[in-house]
C-alpha cells in the first residue's frame, strides 16, 4: 500500500499549514530522513521529513496552498509499487487534488498484510527536534482523513445519546470537534440555549428567534465562570435573560472588532423646537422626548448611509431594506431588572409623533407585561440613551447582528464658543460603536455629520 503523507500538526494551535516548497518532484526516489517539503505554520516554517523509503508518486497540494491538518498532501509508492498506478489511485482523500478513479491497488481494505514494524531509525527522530514528523502510520494507508470524506454527519457517541435524551435535534447542532464532529460541549450548549430560551419566553421577555439562532449556531462558548473571590457574599442565580445577556454580549465583544467615534451636537434648537411642539400638542396628549428626535435622526441618516443598516454575514455584507431602530429599555428591579431592546419598525418612514407613540407603548409593555418576540425582532441599529440619568458620555456594545450602536449622553448646558464668542450652549455627546468589518472610520464620520445636520437643524426631521 502506498503511504499517504498528511499535513502534520506542528503546534497546539495549528489548524492548517501551507506547503511553501516541495524539495522533490513526482517520481523522485525518497529515503527515510530526506526533507520532502517546507511547511509554513501559523508560527514558523519547518522542514517536513520523510520516514519511508520509496518514490514520491504524487504531489496533491501545490506550493502556496493552505490545507487543514490531516489533509493528505502527497503519496509515496513503496518498493514494488507502480508509481503511475499509485498516482492514479491516490487523491481520493486528498485536498483539492486530481481525483482520478481509484485503482484497485488503492482500496481501503488491503488484503495483503501491511508492514507493521517501525523504522529502526525512529528513536533518533523521536527526540524533540524541530524536524517535523508526518502523521503517516503504517497500516493506516487508504483510510480517508476525517476532513475529507464527504458530508456525513459526525457525532460522538455521548453527544448523540445526550441529544436523544434531551430532545435536541442533532442535525441543528453545529459540531466543533475535528471534521465538524458534534461533541458533548456542543450538545450541552444547545441544551442550555433551549433552556434559556424557555426561561426567557416564560418571563415574556425573550430575545428574538433570529438573534437566538445566531447564538446557537455560532458555536460560541458560554463565557467561563470568572475567578471567584474567597469572601463572604450572597449568590444571585442567573435568570434566562441574564444568561442571554451574558452570552450574547461576550459574543459581541469578543467576535466583533469594535471601535468608537464620538461627536458633540448642539442641542439648543432641537430643545426649543421640542418645547414648542410639546406646548402645542399638549391638548392631544403628545409629549415628544429628545430620544424620539434622535430615533428619527438616526433613521433618516441610515437611509442615506446604507452600510449602517447592514449585517456582517461571514462571506458577505447584508444591506437591509427596512430601517428598524432598536431602543434599549432597562427593566425595573422588581421585574427582575435587565435590559431589552424594543424595536421601532420602518423608523425612517414614521413621523415623530408615531415614533413617540411606538416608543411609549414598547416601554410601557416592557415594564409591565413584557415584550413579545415581535416587539424585539429585527432591529438593524440600536440606540442606548443614558442622558436621563445625567450621564454625559459612555460607549455601548454592539447588539448583533447590527453593525453599529449609538450611545447618547445628556444634553447639558456648558460654555460654547460660537462665532468667536463664549456663550452658554446646550450640547450632547453621542458615541457610535462600530463593527469595523462593515464600517470604516471615515464612513462613521460621514454618518455622524449627517446626524449632526439633522439634530442641529431639527426642522429637517419634521418634513
Amino acid at each position, binding site marked *: 500500500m502506498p503511504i499517504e503523507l498528511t499535513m502534520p500538526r506542528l503546534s*497546539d494551535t495549528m489548524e492548517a499549514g501551507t506547503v511553501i516548497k516541495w524539495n522533490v518532484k513526482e517520481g523522485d526516489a525518497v529515503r527515510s530522513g530526506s526533507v520532502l517539503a517546507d511547511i509554513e505554520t501559523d508560527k514558523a516554517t519547518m522542514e517536513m521529513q520523510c520516514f519511508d523509503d520509496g518514490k514520491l508518486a504524487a504531489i496533491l497540494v501545490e506550493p502556496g496552498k493552505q490545507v487543514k491538518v490531516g489533509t493528505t498532501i502527497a503519496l509515496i509508492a513503496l518498493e514494488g509499487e507502480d508509481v503511475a498506478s499509485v498516482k492514479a489511485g491516490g487523491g481520493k482523500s486528498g485536498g483539492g487534488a486530481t481525483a482520478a478513479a481509484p485503482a484497485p491497488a488503492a482500496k481501503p481494505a488491503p488484503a495483503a498484510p501491511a508492514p*507493521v514494524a517501525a523504522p*529502526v531509525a*525512529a*528513536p533518533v527522530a523521536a527526540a524533540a527536534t524541530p524536524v517535523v514528523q508526518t502523521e503517516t502510520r503504517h497500516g493506516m494507508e487508504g483510510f480517508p482523513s476525517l476532513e475529507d470524506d464527504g458530508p456525513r454527519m459526525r457525532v*460522538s*457517541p*455521548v453527544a448523540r445519546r445526550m441529544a436523544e435524551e434531551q430532545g435536541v435535534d442533532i442535525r441543528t447542532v453545529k459540531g466543533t470537534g475535528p471534521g465538524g464532529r458534534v*461533541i458533548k*460541549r456542543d450538545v450541552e450548549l444547545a441544551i442550555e440555549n433551549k433552556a434559556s430560551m424557555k426561561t426567557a419566553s416564560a418571563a415574556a421577555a425573550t430575545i428574538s428567534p433570529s438573534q437566538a439562532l445566531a447564538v446557537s449556531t455560532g458555536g460560541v462558548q458560554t463565557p467561563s465562570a470568572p475567578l471567584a473571590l474567597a469572601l463572604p457574599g450572597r449568590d444571585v442565580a442567573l435568570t434566562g435573560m441574564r444568561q442571554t445577556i451574558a452570552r450574547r454580549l461576550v459574543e459581541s465583544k469578543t467576535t466583533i472588532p469594535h471601535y468608537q467615534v464620538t461627536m458633540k451636537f448642539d442641542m439648543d434648537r432641537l430643545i426649543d423646537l421640542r418645547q414648542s411642539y410639546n406646548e402645542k400638542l399638549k391638548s392631544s396628549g403628545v409629549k415628544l422626548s429628545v430620544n424620539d428626535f434622535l430615533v428619527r435622526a438616526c433613521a433618516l441618516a441610515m437611509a442615506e448611509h446604507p452600510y449602517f443598516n447592514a449585517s456582517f454575514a461571514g462571506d458577505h455584507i447584508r444591506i437591509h431594506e427596512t430601517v428598524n431602530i432598536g431602543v434599549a429599555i432597562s427593566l425595573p428591579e422588581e421585574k427582575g431588572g435587565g435590559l431589552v431592546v424594543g424595536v421601532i419598525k420602518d423608523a425612517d418612514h414614521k413621523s415623530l409623533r408615531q415614533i413617540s407613540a411606538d416608543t411609549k407603548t414598547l416601554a410601557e409593555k416592557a415594564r409591565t407585561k413584557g415584550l413579545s418576540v415581535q416587539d424585539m425582532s429585527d432591529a438593524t441599529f440600536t440606540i442606548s440613551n443614558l442622558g436621563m440619568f445625567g450621564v454625559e458620555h459612555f460607549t455601548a456594545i454592539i447588539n448583533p447582528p447590527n453593525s453599529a450602536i449609538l450611545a447618547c449622553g445628556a444634553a447639558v448646558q456648558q460654555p460654547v464658543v460660537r462665532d468667536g464668542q463664549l456663550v452658554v450652549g446646550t450640547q450632547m455627546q453621542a458615541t457610535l460603536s462600530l463593527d469595523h468589518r462593515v464600517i470604516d472610520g471615515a464612513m462613521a464620520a460621514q454618518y455622524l455629520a449627517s446626524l449632526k445636520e439633522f439634530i442641529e437643524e431639527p426642522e429637517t426631521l419634521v418634513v
Partner: protein
Amino acid sequence: MTAVLSSGVMSNPVFREPETLGGPTREIEFRDAIREAMSEEMRRDKRVFLLGEEVAQYDGAYKVSKGMLAEFGERRIIDTPISESGFAGMAIGAAMIGLRPICEFMSWSFSLVAADPILNNAPKMLYMSGGQWGCPIVFRGNDGAGGQLGSTHSWCVEGLYSNVPGVKIVIPSCPADAKGLMKTAIRDDDPVFFLESERMLGNKGHVPEGEYLIPFGHAAVRRRGTDCTLCSWGRPVNFCLEAAEILAKEGISCEVIDLRTIRPLDMPTVIQSVRKTNCAVVVDQSWSFSSPGGELAALIHKHCFDDLDNFVYRVHSDDVPTPYSSKLEQEYLPNVRKICEAVRAATYRA
C-alpha cells in the same frame, strides 16, 4: 498434593485498603514495604521462602531482602547461580510439591531466559493437571526502564506476559500498595508476577503499622475529577498525578485511577468513572502494540461506547527499543508532557 489447594492459608484473608485502617503509619521506602510483606509472610507461613541472585549474602542487589538472611537463615533465603531458567524451574517444582516460593529476578528483563518455566509451566499447571497441582509462586523483580540500562535491560514485560492466561499480574505504584499487594500475592494459589520498578524502590510513602492485604482486581481512585479519566498502573500513575495537577490549572479536571493489578483488571471502577467523565486516556509504559493499555482501551470502548465523547487516547513508550541516552529515554517513556497532550486532545482542548 491436593493439600496445596486446600491448605486453608488463603481461605479467609482479611482484605483491607491501607487508608481505611486508621492507626499509626510510618514513612518507609518502597523496598522496605516489600521486605516487610515478605518477612511477615515468612514468619506466618513456614512454607514461604525467597530465592534469587544475590538475595542472601549480598542482602539483595537492590537491598530489598536486606537482613532477611540473618533472620530466616540460608535454608529460606537462597542465593542462586546466575541461571534464571534453572532457579525459576526449581521454584516452580517447589511450588508444585507444596512450598510457596518467592522467586526474585534482579530484573524482569532477565526473566526472558526463563520464559519456558514461567510462561509455559507455571500458569498452565493447574489446567494441565486437571486441577491436581496449582503453582502458588510469586515472581518478582524490577520492570521497565531503570535509567540508562539500555535496550536489553529495560523491559516492560507486562505486554508480553499479560497475554498468557493463568497468571496474575500486580504492578504497584506506591509503598503502601506494594506491601498489601505482596502479602496477597504470597497467599494467592496462582502464579503471581509482581512487577516493581528500580526507579521507585527509593520512593517513600506512608505505610500502616497494622497488617493489611489489598485484594487483587480492586483499583484505587487516586484523584477525583470530572473531565477525563486517566487509567494507569505502576510508575506512570505518579506521572498521571503530576499531569493532573498541571491540567487542573488549565481547567481540566482529571480522575486518576490506579488499576494496581492488570490481571485481574478492575473494569467496574473504570467504567463508572468514564460514564461520568465521557473521556478516557490510558497510560501504559508498555509498547503500544498488543499491550495491556490497548486491551484496556478496547474494553472501555466496548463497555462505555455510548458514553464516550472521543476515542480513548493512549500514552505508551515509543515503538522502538529503549534508548540508552537519558534524554531520549525520558522522551521515549510515557511522561507528564505526553500525558498532558493526550488529555488536552481527548477533551478537545488541544
